[in-house]
């Protein structure tokens, strides 16, 4: 354990270029002779990048990270990937996927155990069944509590709105949200679960004039001599088909965003059911961003039975006692606006919640502008939020 901690410390120093030459040589020797140690390097390289992104590095580490670690283009690419992953996770899974995990892991294991007990007529059968009943009862109770909570939230929003001055434009507005729909899961797998070798069996040689001349010959020579072992993780290429590149087509983009929203629907908090036909509301959490920032745009697929869309606008900075929100179409037509919105703590952080009647929303792109009321009585823009609506 102590050795593992020491190894990690050493590798981190190596990654930041903090080791003396001699130590660097020693550690490089270990990378070449100890695959586990090398894998630890790959893992820590990613973790260091993540630490950077969440501001977890010390001042000196940050300096080394910027000036040394990021020098190689591969590292800059790695950082871009980490940023994208970070955004994806925060958008798609802002709430824990405990339900999904429970289904995929806990319940499956539980069911298998129960089945085995029944088959073997084990004495524990009665006890197991009793436990199962308790689990089911607890889950049912959690569901009831959750539904009551959501109803309370909606009622609270409506009460707040009723107590406020009539909305500009005469339309009802209020709080909150998160898209929820059945996920179409792509069954394709990345077939190679082990970390695959990134290099082809034998790379072209690009060194020196003479080698350039003989490049083709060298490649041919190597290709003939080194044939991949059927089971070799280092020579077998990942079988996953490269996905199609992103298309600039608007429909494609909408589809992509829709799929993203569907994936997000999997990550409802414990006990929270997915939106089903017949439920009166859907919700969507929005973070502020620019129109160019596609990652900040969310898509909600409104079910026909939905009556209210709850928009939860996350606050990035500034703390005003009340806010004014205005929803416009991409063409600039005001759909709704609301004043005197008070910030509240949500599971994803501090935000302002509004409720939009679903009937006001057609298939379109929408922009929400949020302004905070300053002490001088002026409204100051605090964020712009983007979302798209599609309908089932």
């Amino acid at each position: 354990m102590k050795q593992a901690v020491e190894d990690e410390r050493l590798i981190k120093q190596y990654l930041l270029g903090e080791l003396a030459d001699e130590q660097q040589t020693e550690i490089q020797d270990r990378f070449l002779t100890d695959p586990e140690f090398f894998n630890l390097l790959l893992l820590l390289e990613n973790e260091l990048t993540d630490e950077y992104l969440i501001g977890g590095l010390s001042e000196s580490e940050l300096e080394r990270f910027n000036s040394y670690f990021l020098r190689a283009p591969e590292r800059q690419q790695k950082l871009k990937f980490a940023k994208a992953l970070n955004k994806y996770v925060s958008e798609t899974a802002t709430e824990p996927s405990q339900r999904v995990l429970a289904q995929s892991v806990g319940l499956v294991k539980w069911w298998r155990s129960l089945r085995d007990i029944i088959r073997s007529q084990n004495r524990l059968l009665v006890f197991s069944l009793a436990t199962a009943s308790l689990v089911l009862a607890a889950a049912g109770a959690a569901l009831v509590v959750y539904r009551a909570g959501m109803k309370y939230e909606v009622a609270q929003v409506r009460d707040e709105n009723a107590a406020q001055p009539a909305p500009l434009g005469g339309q009802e507005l209020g709080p909150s949200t998160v898209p929820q729909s059945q996920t179409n899961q792509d069954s394709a797998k990345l077939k190679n679960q082990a970390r695959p070798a990134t290099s082809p069996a034998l790379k072209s040689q690009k060194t020196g004039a003479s080698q350039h001349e003989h490049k083709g010959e060298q490649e041919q020579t190597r290709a003939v001599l080194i044939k991949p072992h059927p089971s070799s993780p280092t020579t077998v290429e990942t079988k996953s088909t490269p996905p199609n590149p992103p298309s600039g087509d608007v429909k494609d983009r909408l589809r992509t965003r829709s799929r993203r929203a569907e994936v997000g629907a999997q990550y409802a908090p414990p006990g929270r059911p997915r939106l089903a036909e017949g439920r009166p509301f859907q919700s969507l959490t929005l973070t502020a961003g620019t129109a160019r920032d596609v990652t900040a745009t969310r898509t909600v697929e409104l079910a026909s039975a939905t009556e209210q869309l709850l928009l939860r606008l996350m606050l990035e900075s500034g703390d005003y006692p009340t806010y004014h929100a205005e929803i416009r179409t991409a063409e600039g037509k005001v759909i709704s606006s609301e004043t005197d919105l008070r910030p509240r703590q949500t599971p994803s952080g501090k935000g302002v919640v509004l409720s939009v009647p679903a009937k006001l929303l057609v298939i379109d792109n929408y922009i929400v502008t949020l302004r905070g009321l300053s002490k001088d009585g002026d409204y100051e823009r605090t964020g712009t939020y983007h979302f798209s609506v599609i309908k089932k």
Partner: protein
Amino acid sequence: MDTVPSAKREWVLTADALDQLLSWLDADKHIAGEKYEEIRRTLIKIFVCRGCTTAEDLADETINRVIRKVPDIARTYVGNPALYFSGVAKYVLLEHEKKRPDLSLSISEPPTRIDDEAEDIEREYECLDQCMAHLTPKNRDLILYYYQEEKLAKIENRKRLAERLGLKLNALRVRADRIRANLEECVGKCLTHASSRM
């Protein structure tokens, strides 16, 4: 711009020379091929870690130099051949750094700014979205849950996840990193594919 140290101009890689290298790495040709790939992959990473922008070229130059030496050392060399690569790589790196003193290991020059890359991130995100769809539901759940939250909350989150999956925290860490590596590779291919169509 990085440059690769010049090699002996008269030298040409031949089938025999490569065969000798493989035989030196292992008597079994398949295992030798695996070892070769592993060494090359590690060398590339080492050069990346040392701030080289032409890491693959430097790794290949290192291998070429070892191949040239194999006829002289194979019979008498004692120990893990991989260590010999390490020694040669050290010299290749030294030569490389002499040729680009402005990019030596000093920390005087910050790297290229990466802030102005909104479009890159957008493309990356789109590819990631597609690659996520290629993961099994179980792996997708794991990766999304594993990277949720921040700092202390993240640590607690991972402990809970490990418990639920019946894994030790470190095993979960390794598993998540493997899925991430697959995703990263998939995104890389997607980006290459996308740029080739632009």
